[in-house]
């Protein structure tokens, strides 16, 4: 769905801000355009590119993305149980190109954050005035003993959509009648806090009819989780006895795996668990390129100014999305999209020498507890004493008691949200 120039004008963004037209251009020394390079074309990077171009078409925006086809994670839990195809998760970059974004399919291998210079595997070198990184996450293959990239071929994580999603889907389809599914969940922070529980729910929904003698065990490093009361009461109603959740202090924190034996070992004093299908969601950190570029700290994530998303380690470089430390915001597609807009406005203000506006951020995470049973958690965020905090008295979860029509409507909205955010992020 490409935005025409008229539609852009209609959207009024650039117009209202006065950044359109020769007079308002950001001029570089020799009258050339200001250049922004964005590394990573997921929800964060794509949204940032779109809004930069909408707010100020005079800025040259280059987006560098490894994959010509973006496979998105939201709704990918439906792919696992055959309710959606992987192709339905795919999005191209034509919409961004139509807005005048230069899209380069290549892998960024080196970044000089001081010179703001980027090098790619394909041999391209780009200098820019402002650099934005939105590389998503790197799965840590050094955190759980025995769980490395090779082990993930047997015990899939399926935490990047793609081959891993299909692998887990095939394993589920091949599972015996009385099969046991194990899902190992890391401590926070990780991508998509409710994702593992949505996954457990949808697998249980499938098992209820396809493998009614099976069991599903969630081994959790945490002692509580988001929307817990809603998930657990729905599990009791919809899948009584099927899902068991083991919290961290009861032996849920997996420390070691034996991939060949499909066995997970919690710490000393707790029983190991063997599964027929084993999904290990390992701990994570900022996408590898952010670390190579010296943008992450000891936590593995990137500290940024909470108003502009400019790195606290290197001026003129911005980090958004999962890779960034963004106060209380969860690592979600919605958050990445919201941060990208605040960042685009802040970046342009910096280029134009204008004061930054007071930011406003939002997040809503829908989860499907069954195909037509949706729940959500939502928050509006503000900057309070330099930190991104949810506005008190607002947000929260769906009500614990609600008629099934409300759950069905939230399930429909989960898919509606997906359609909207794809259009808003990728065009």
């Amino acid at each position, binding site marked *: 769905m490409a935005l025409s120039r008229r539609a852009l004008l209609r959207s009024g963004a650039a117009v209202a801000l006065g950044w359109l037209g020769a007079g308002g251009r950001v001029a570089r020394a020799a009258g050339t355009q200001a250049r922004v390079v964005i590394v990573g074309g997921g929800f964060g990077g794509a949204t940032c590119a779109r809004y930069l171009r909408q707010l100020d078409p005079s800025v040259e925006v280059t987006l560098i993305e490894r994959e010509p086809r973006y496979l998105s994670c939201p709704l990918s839990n439906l792919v696992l149980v055959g309710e959606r195809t992987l192709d339905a998760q795919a999005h191209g970059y034509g919409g961004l190109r139509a807005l005048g974004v230069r899209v380069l399919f290549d892998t960024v291998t080196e970044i000089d954050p001081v010179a703001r210079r980027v090098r790619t595997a394909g041999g391209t070198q780009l200098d820019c005035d402002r650099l934005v990184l939105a590389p998503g996450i790197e799965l840590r293959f050094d955190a759980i003993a025995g769980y490395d990239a090779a082990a993930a071929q047997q015990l899939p994580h399926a935490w990047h959509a793609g081959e891993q999603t299909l692998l887990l889907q095939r394993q589920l389809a091949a599972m015996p009648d009385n099969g046991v599914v194990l899902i190992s969940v890391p401590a926070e922070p990780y991508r998509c806090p409710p994702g593992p529980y949505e996954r457990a729910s949808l697998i249980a929904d499938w098992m209820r009819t396809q493998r009614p003698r099976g069991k599903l065990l969630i081994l959790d490093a945490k002692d509580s989780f988001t929307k817990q009361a809603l998930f657990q009461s729905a599990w009791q109603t919809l899948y009584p006895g099927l899902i068991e959740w083991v919290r961290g202090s009861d032996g849920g924190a997996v420390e070691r795996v034996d991939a060949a034996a499909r066995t997970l070992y919690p710490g000393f004093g707790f029983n190991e668990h063997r599964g027929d299908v084993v999904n290990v969601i390992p701990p994570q950190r900022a996408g590898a390129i952010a670390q190579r570029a010296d943008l992450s700290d000891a936590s593995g994530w990137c500290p940024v100014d909470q108003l502009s998303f400019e790195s606290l380690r290197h001026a003129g470089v911005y980090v958004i999305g999962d890779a960034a430390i963004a106060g209380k915001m969860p690592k979600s597609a919605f958050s990445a999209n919201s941060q990208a807009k605040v960042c685009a406005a802040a970046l342009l203000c910096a280029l134009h020498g204008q004061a930054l*506006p007071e930011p406003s951020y939002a997040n809503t995470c829908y989860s499907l507890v069954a195909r037509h049973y949706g729940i959500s958690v939502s928050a509006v965020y503000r900057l309070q004493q330099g930190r991104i905090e949810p506005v008190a008295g607002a947000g929260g979860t769906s009500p614990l008691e609600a008629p099934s029509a409300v759950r069905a409507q939230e399930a429909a909205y989960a898919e509606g949200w997906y359609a909207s*955010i794809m259009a*808003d992020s990728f065009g």
Partner: protein
Amino acid sequence: MRYRPFSLAVLGASLLAPAHAAGVAQPGDLRAFVLAASCAACHGPDGHSPGAIPSLAGKSARFIEFAMQEYKSGASAGTVMNRIARGYSDDEIRLIAARLGRREEVR
């Protein structure tokens, strides 16, 4: 900085001219832009929702403000908007509505 300082005169001059030329006046500033930008994630770019979530495009500013206030007060139940509307002040709701809504209704 090697950028030319951004002049307020330019901002003023270009603020409304092209919008009027296109026949659609767009009020608002960067603050309104940032506030209203959050809505697009669910309601679609420019309020054009391609899926199940209601579009805001074509709605009047007055309607959007009224609906937000109804959610905020609890007069409308909603699924998620009641929780979200409480996150905004009356002023912010007015800015959002003015930014997203049809302008002729604001006056």
